[in-house]
């Protein structure tokens, strides 16, 4: 029962939605819109489950003092603080939270708003940008160590990378006005050919996996039962 009911639901709904795609009748469209509503409701339950699971995981980690457990405090405090500010301060800081602190720097007055936008502008944005900016340093170091013309294929890759890297920046135009167009050709032809092959493979893989799930051959989503 525990296995057969979910399998039957997936089979029936999967086939129904497949047929629905090709039926432009109003009833078919209404059913489709209903399913979209259900999707939202199921996702809301998944969000609650996910949050509960995350909190449980970190509480357990703190209690058992597992590796890097102090960072779990950071996660929990961040969740609670963001939730309080989001619920009572809102996106723009117009909620019922206490008086917003003010201070002057030079002639300018600064007001700290209890809002999601304050957290976003002052914590999320600089942290995210800093993390990604570090990538340039590691990429340069990795390119210097690994990009060697050891084989014929590696040499081809190296030449293509050279043309594209210099062709996609304005400096390439000064070296030769044809260089940006050569870089564009590499992207348009050899790159597109290989990407298209990968896309076909991925598309066929998705179709095959979807069929296997619908027919009950692939059951990992049921916990492997």
């Amino acid at each position: 029962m525990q296995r057969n009911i979910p399998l039957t639901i997936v089979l029936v709904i999967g086939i129904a939605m497949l047929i629905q795609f090709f039926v432009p009748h109003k009833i078919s469209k209404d059913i489709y819109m209903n399913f979209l509503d259900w999707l939202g409701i199921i996702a809301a339950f998944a969000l609650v489950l996910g949050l509960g699971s995350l909190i449980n995981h970190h509480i357990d980690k703190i209690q058992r003092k597992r590796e890097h457990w102090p960072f779990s405090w950071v996660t929990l405090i961040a969740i609670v603080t963001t939730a309080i500010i989001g619920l009572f301060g809102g996106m723009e800081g117009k909620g019922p939270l206490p008086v917003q602190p003010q201070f002057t720097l030079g002639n300018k007055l600064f007001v700290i708003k209890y809002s999601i936008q304050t957290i976003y502008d002052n914590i999320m944005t600089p942290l995210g940008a800093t993390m990604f900016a570090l990538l340039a340093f590691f990429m340069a170091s990795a390119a210097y160590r690994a990009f060697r013309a050891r084989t014929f294929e590696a040499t081809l890759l190296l030449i293509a990378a050279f043309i594209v890297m210099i062709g996609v920046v304005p400096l390439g135009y000064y070296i030769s006005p044809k260089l940006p167009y050569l870089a564009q050709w590499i992207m348009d032809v050899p790159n597109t050919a290989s990407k298209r092959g990968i896309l076909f493979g991925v598309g066929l893989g998705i179709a095959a996996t979807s069929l296997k799930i619908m027919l009950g051959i692939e059951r990992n989503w049921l916990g492997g039962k």
Partner: protein
Amino acid sequence: MKIWEYLLKIDRRVIFLLVGLSVLIPLIFPFSIKTNVMPPTRKLFDTIEEINPDAQGILIAADYDPQTMPELQPMFIALLRHSFARGMPVLVMSSYIQGPGLAKQGLDQVTEEFNCKTTTNADSIIYGRDYVFLGFPPLWLAAVLRMGSDISQAFPADYFKNRTASLEMMKKIKNYNDIGIVVSIAGSALPQSWVTYANTRFGVKIGSGATAVTAPDFYPFLNTGQMSGMIAGLKGASEYEYLVNTKYNLSGPTPATRGMSSQSIAHLAILILVVIGNIGYFATRRQ
């Protein structure tokens, strides 16, 4: 003999310093470089130019986060300037939870740029009449599919908690039929999903703004016409800034164009490092 070995083993701190300086110095002392507009950027610009602003609007999806902001935010700003300069109704949304904050920053900046030059209400960019910020839909796929029949149903409330259907602009923008193009600006494969669900199913045109790293993934879609143009990387953003500012005689910060001198030198520095590594490799191999 030792010099070849040194070329193979340059300390990574030296590499970091070289990359840091090659980014920093041109940012402090920028030099002007001629902008050469490439076909994917031109195609997107022309597609937007062909839209009749009285009949259709544009949907710009800020599908990115602070990590990719330096590369993608200039595209968002340039697209907003282009759309407002043409008098098109503009819808803005974000497919990622981290996107609305950046979209709001961009909208505030561009609307202020336009409004500080206007003298009448008719010329101003007004929320609800000229643009609507839909915010983030918790379930992206359901929202994208639902927008095919009714945008106000997909987003019952906008970012500021107004009832979407009550906004003046939304009376003429009902679904994808009223949208000339959807431009998804993303550092991920999301523009491809827009093609799968919005273009294939509803026939709306899709454009993309992509980081230089993800741009190669979208060339097959450009090639087939499923994507109507693309802004690729910071270079693409600088090309778009150039096209918009030249055609509409606009002023305002152009961060992508300013970043071009820095990016050119950084690319050159990395290429020089690769050449040095290869010289060292071949010299030591011969010995």
